[in-house]
């Protein structure tokens, strides 16, 4: 059942598997969808979608796949409350009943829609409005030979309408901008090793030693696991990065507030790395790039954050630097290559979306930094994964 929908969801990138599908089929068999499209929508969502980041995608797929499906006309809560009461006792004569005429389905649907529009109060025992215990074709516990039974789950809006509202768009992992989420992604950057520091009790070794000692307690010690990742963060604060200032600040805050790294250094540059960098936190302290490179080695991890957008001759020409008062003796590309050689474990994070990476300067930078990722939570996670974590 609904195999087309299943394949459609998979094509659109939702990780739905056969097990979830079998669960859905079994749930449908038990009648858990309620008798409405809204109930089916909720059932599908709770069985097929397992991360709120996928809710928006699911909503889109559902709205598109079931677009135009004729949902029953919307029933208001008032109407359902009127119908909840028990009907009055019937008092029809045989002639009354004989006069009732069966209506066909199209006619019924049309009249039902009309009644829903017009009805403003409770009616029971009658022959025209939606109510209980009468001869009208709409309601329940009446005597009409055909008709539409009303009474059950309320349904304020159709499921397709609800799905197309896209209430869960802010939860998508590819669009979230929050420093806490950056913190969590950065925490994945870890290399736990037991080296140095105060020792902690090694329980397994202690038990083994005690057992060897015939029960005389003997304690063994070992160093605790510590994160040994050292991170060098270089951030572009040139003019073209101003629209991304908030995003970079969040990443910066996230990295700074984490006491998760063994060592972390942050430096700023303008457009491209040249012979001088500005140390973060101290706006006017410039440090020579060579000094920075000498203080790190291949065990350090490197993250460069920048849009890599600049005039290509900043990369290719000596003196191409945009800053009028400083003259760089070597072109930007030379510096980038130098950094890359010194720190092979590096990634470049670009706040511009991948569509904008076609510019000449970006392509040139990508030849040196092959691992360029977008500056989103997903991008950062992928970047860290590419570093082997």
């Amino acid at each position, binding site marked *: 059942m609904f195999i087309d929908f299943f394949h459609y969801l998979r094509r659109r990138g939702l990780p739905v598997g056969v097990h979830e599908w079998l*669960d859905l089929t*079994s749930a449908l068999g038990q009648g858990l969808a309620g008798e409405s499209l809204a109930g089916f929508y909720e059932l599908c969502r*709770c069985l097929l979608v397992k*991360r*709120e980041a996928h809710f928006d995608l699911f909503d889109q797929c559902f709205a598109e796949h079931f677009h135009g499906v004729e949902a029953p006309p919307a029933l208001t809560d008032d109407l359902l409350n009127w119908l909840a009461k028990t009907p009055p006792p019937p008092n029809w004569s045989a002639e009354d009943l004989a006069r009732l005429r069966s209506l066909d389905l199209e006619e019924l649907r049309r009249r039902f829609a009309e009644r829903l529009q017009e009805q403003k109060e409770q009616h029971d025992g009658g022959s025209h409005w939606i109510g209980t215990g009468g001869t009208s074709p709409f309601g329940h516990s009446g005597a009409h030979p055909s008709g539409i039974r009303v009474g059950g789950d309320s349904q304020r809006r159709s499921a397709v309408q609800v799905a197309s509202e896209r209430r869960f768009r802010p939860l998508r992992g590819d669009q979230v901008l929050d420093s806490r989420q950056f913190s*969590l992604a950065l925490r994945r950057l870890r290399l736990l090793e037991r080296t140095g520091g105060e020792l902690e009790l090694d329980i397994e070794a202690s038990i083994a030693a005690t057992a060897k000692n015939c029960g005389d307690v003997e304690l063994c010690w070992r160093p605790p696991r510590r994160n040994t990742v050292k991170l060098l963060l270089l951030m572009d*604060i040139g003019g073209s990065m101003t629209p991304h200032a908030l995003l970079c600040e969040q990443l910066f805050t996230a990295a700074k507030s984490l006491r998760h790294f063994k060592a972390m250094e942050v430096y700023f540059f303008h457009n491209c790395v040249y012979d001088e960098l500005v140390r973060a936190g101290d706006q006017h302290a410039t440090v020579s790039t060579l000094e920075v490179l000498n203080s790190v080695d291949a065990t350090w991890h490197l993250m460069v954050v920048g849009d890599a957008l600049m005039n290509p001759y900043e990369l290719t020409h000596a003196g191409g630097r945009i800053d009028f008062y400083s003259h760089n003796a070597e072109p930007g590309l030379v510096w980038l290559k130098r950094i890359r050689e010194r720190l092979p474990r590096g990634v470049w994070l670009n706040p511009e979306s991948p569509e904008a990476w076609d510019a000449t300067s970006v392509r040139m930078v990508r030849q040196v930094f092959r691992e360029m990722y977008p500056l989103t939570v997903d991008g950062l996670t992928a970047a860290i994964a590419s570093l082997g974590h």
Partner: protein
Amino acid sequence: MGFRGTASYIASKELSHAVDVAVALGRPLLIRGEPGTGKTLLAKAVAEALDLELLVWHVKSTAKAQEGLYVYDTVQRLNDSRFGEGDVRDISRYIKLGPLGKAFAAPRRTVVLIDEIDKADPEFPNDLLHELDAMSFDIVETGVTVTARERPVVIISSNAEKELPDAFLRRCVFHFIAFPDQQQMAEIVRVHHPGLEGELLAQCLRRFYWLRDLPELRKRPSTSELVDWISALLHGGISREQLEKELPFAGVLLKRETDMLQLRRTTTPGGPAAPRRW
């Protein structure tokens, strides 16, 4: 047996539906949501509504999956062998069942809440997979197999901090508790403050949602903070007019210094702060 919330817990229609589906299919129910949206209270409400006993397992960052099933208290046994009395050879005296183990061993159906499962090691949920599927586990030391007579209703809450493994997610029914809208929030507040006047409640909610929508808030106020704030306002005898002009007791809603500064910046009549220099 439909779940519709209880007198003290307002459940949205989608949440009730998800609970019904999880109970009918015998799958664990995974609840995620912002902190303070009532994930832990849900389990209590479900236990109340279905009239079942509630067993809670508060997962810590050092928790191991085995601890939820049972713990073999070796240290006690070692101690008893040297200083205590009683038959130390009977290992079953030193087997203590954890919350999940107790649920399996219980004669009646129970509700088990595994609270904040994402706090533990990333591999933790995977370690529970087999037991959750088969509803039984072996106690290796005594050779006893504990099988659940009645499949317990398992509710798992997660703070949306860490990603959970796929194999684990596959087995669960998932629900995300979205932050309540104004109408639902009004109902929730009325449960805690039944005598609250309608106008004041509406004004409080307006201010609360305005605060939540402020840009650049590091930690947005949650439902429980709103309830506490209204208690503070009632105690302090704050009137509706005062509430319109300022936001008293903001410290009950905002817990971070940067957020308080942000609030002050927005409400100061002097205009926005000077733009920051890079």
